[in-house]
């Protein structure tokens, strides 16, 4: 009966693997080292490319700066820009006192006549002196400011003094008032200033 020596064959096969594996590993790691070297070379080229781009950009900036320095009327341009900026700010705060008169006239009793009017932009306060024929007219004059249509523009009306004055022909009540006006009345209204700026 023939005998098969399985043990001998196994020992030969593992001996081959023992010789081959280090070689494979050497090749694999050699490949990795080569890949790392190629990667380094690529990084080196990439760095040079980036450095060149940086230099180009810096050169372009120098060129632009030279061009900026040579733009004609550059100094005047900066002055004009400052002028325009200040102009826009001032226009935004510009007030139109003349727009207050029509609103005040609407709120005034027909029988009242003004003898003094003072307006100040600080505190939005208006002071006036006026005459009415009787005390009842003064009461009517004041009642107007209890109506929403009128007190939206003029409010907090205070009588700071009143007295009866008489001359040869007639008597009248002279009174002084202080009130607050709505500051939006002074904002530019194109319908009231058709030729305004």
């Amino acid at each position, binding site marked *: 009966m023939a005998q098969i020596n399985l043990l001998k064959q196994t020992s030969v096969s593992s001996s081959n693997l023992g010789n081959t594996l280090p070689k494979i590993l050497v090749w694999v*790691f050699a490949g990795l080292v080569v890949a*790392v070297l190629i990667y380094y070379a690529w990084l*080196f080229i990439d*760095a040079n490319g980036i450095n060149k781009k940086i230099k180009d950009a810096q050169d372009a900036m120098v060129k632009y700066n030279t061009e900026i320095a040579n733009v004609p009327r550059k100094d005047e341009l900066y002055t004009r820009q400052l002028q325009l900026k200040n102009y826009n700010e001032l226009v935004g705060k510009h007030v139109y006192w003349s727009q207050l008169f029509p609103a005040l006239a609407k709120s005034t009793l027909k029988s009242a006549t003004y003898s003094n*009017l003072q307006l100040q932009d600080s505190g939005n306060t208006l002071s006036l002196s006026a005459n009415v024929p009787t005390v009842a007219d003064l009461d009517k004059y004041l009642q107007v400011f209890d109506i929403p249509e009128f007190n939206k523009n003029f409010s907090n009306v205070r009588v700071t003094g009143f007295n009866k004055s008489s001359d040869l022909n007639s008597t009248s009540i002279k009174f002084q008032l202080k009130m607050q006006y709505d500051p939006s009345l002074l904002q530019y209204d194109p319908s009231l200033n058709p030729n*305004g700026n």
Partner: protein
Amino acid sequence: MAIELVLLILFGGLFFWFIVLPKRASITDLEANLSTVQKQQQDISGELNSLKNLANELNNDTADINHLDQALPLNGKTMTLQILAATLAQSVGVTIKDTNAVGPNNQILAGDKALLAKPYGTTRALQKISGSISVLGTFSQLEAFLRKLETSGRLINIGSLTIDSAEDGNLSLKVTMEAYYLAP
């Protein structure tokens, strides 16, 4: 073979750690630097273009420049404000009772050689002229005068106004005003 393998691993590892990684880090820095420089380049390029466009506008918009100079002059001559107020008063028929205008103290109004040589070469700032004007007229004349002041080409801000009855059935109007200019 084992020695070669160890040496290979050692060489590869050391090369990667001490040469490749620092190079990669330096490239990251370079890329960030490039990005910054390119942004600066774009900004300067944009500034140059807008400067060129503005310079063209400056050459073409002479009328607008004149309006701007009228509204906010580059000199602080107080008399021009008084002349303007007088002209406006005449145009609506009111009589001027009194007028004055005061600028900052020690302001050079003429003969500034350095400024004349380089009118736009110095830094300017907003300055103020304060003044007042009293006029006589009917209510409609005073209202028209006020409107002219408010809408004149020169920017004039009225701080306060007082209307009083005057002789001959007329009214008197007094306004305090401020005008502005840009000067060194």
